[in-house]
């Protein structure tokens, strides 16, 4: 393998890590270009989409080129930051290709937060939001339980490898159902506040934000993909909640 090929492999790998873990398209492209240039490749051409990377080195015959498909996966912002830092150090000339490859390998294996912490954070976040949106403390407690339940549910769902939209749909239905069941005990004051608090994790805040950032950087195609993602996710959440509320409504004597 010649040197150019290795640089391309490294740059593509870095781009994939960025894109997968929640970086916007323009940053991914910029970082790849900076890395390639700093590693001594002047004629690097890259094109980045929300779910794919395309790059070539120079226009001569026989120069390496690569295409990568980047399917959506769990977002890890710590990895984005780490690659950002890596590219800065490469640009400063502090790192050679060899070392950079090793570090990238470490970044790729950066741990996710432990599952227990995620469950607790899911509960705490949901409770905070339920209270912020005007719920009573009892609603906060219910949101706490449902939020923790949602994380457990999503971790369990992960095994089945369902697509994202279905997962969000089922997650929203879970939130509505769990809240309704907990409210049967009679402790809840405003069930809607608990549901909203626990729903916040599913809401497409990230897709919306990335869509805007792509669009203002004139990455219209990627921005549109994210925008559609955000709209469809919102729709799926609404359907999931709506389904459960609708079914509950059918039971005689139960008022929402």
């Amino acid at each position: 393998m010649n040197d150019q090929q290795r640089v391309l492999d490294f740059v593509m790998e870095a781009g994939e890590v960025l894109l997968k873990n929640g970086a916007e398209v323009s940053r991914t492209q910029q970082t790849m270009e900076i890395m390639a240039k700093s590693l001594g490749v002047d004629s690097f051409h890259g094109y980045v989409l929300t779910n794919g990377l395309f790059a070539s080195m120079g226009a001569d015959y026989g120069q390496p080129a690569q295409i990568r498909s980047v399917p959506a996966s769990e977002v890890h912002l710590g990895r984005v930051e780490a690659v950002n830092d890596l590219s800065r150090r490469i640009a400063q000339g502090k790192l050679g290709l060899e070392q950079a490859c090793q570090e990238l390998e470490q970044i790729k294996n950066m741990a996710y937060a432990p599952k227990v912490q995620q469950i607790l954070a899911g509960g705490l976040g949901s409770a905070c939001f339920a209270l912020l949106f005007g719920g009573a403390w009892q609603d906060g407690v219910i949101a706490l339980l449902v939020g923790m339940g949602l994380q457990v549910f999503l971790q369990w769902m992960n095994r089945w490898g369902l697509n994202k939209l279905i997962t969000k749909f089922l997650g929203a239905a879970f939130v509505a159902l769990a809240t309704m069941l907990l409210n049967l005990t009679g402790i809840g004051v405003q069930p809607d506040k608990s549901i909203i608090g626990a729903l916040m994790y599913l809401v497409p805040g990230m897709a919306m934000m990335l869509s805007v950032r792509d669009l203002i950087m004139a990455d219209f195609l990627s921005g549109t993909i994210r925008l559609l993602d955000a709209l469809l996710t919102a729709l799926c959440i609404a359907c999931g909640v709506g389904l459960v509320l609708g079914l509950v409504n059918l039971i005689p004597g139960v008022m929402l």
Partner: protein
Amino acid sequence: MLLSFLQQLLLAFFGTISFGLLFHVPPRHFAACGIAGAAGWLVYWGMMQLQPSAVVASLVAVIPLTILTRVFAVTRRAPVTLFLIPGIFPLVPGAGIYYTAYAFITGDSAQFVLKGAETLKIAVALAMGIAVVMSVPMLPSNLRADRKKQ
């Protein structure tokens, strides 16, 4: 008033940090995320005390939030995304999505249109706010000197 202000501050702060953890923000940036999220929410909350429109409040609130994330990005040398993704959550119209679905299910067409339109308007307001702040060019500073050299 002061007590409820503090309450809102703490709730938004910890709510944002919790979501930061779920998106695997490194712990050393937790405080910055929390401050950004709390700042956005407090401006929103203050605006809601002054006037009734959630759309206006969202637009006004997202601007200081985004400015703050850009400041953090420079001072803490991390991508803006790291602070903006968790920080935006208190302002995202999750309630709007819920009430729209609820109105749809209960057959309240007037509320459905009202809530649906409002949710969409809030989303657009947030988008506009982020877009405006993100398109202002960064002032040259010593902190960015090393990046410029490239």
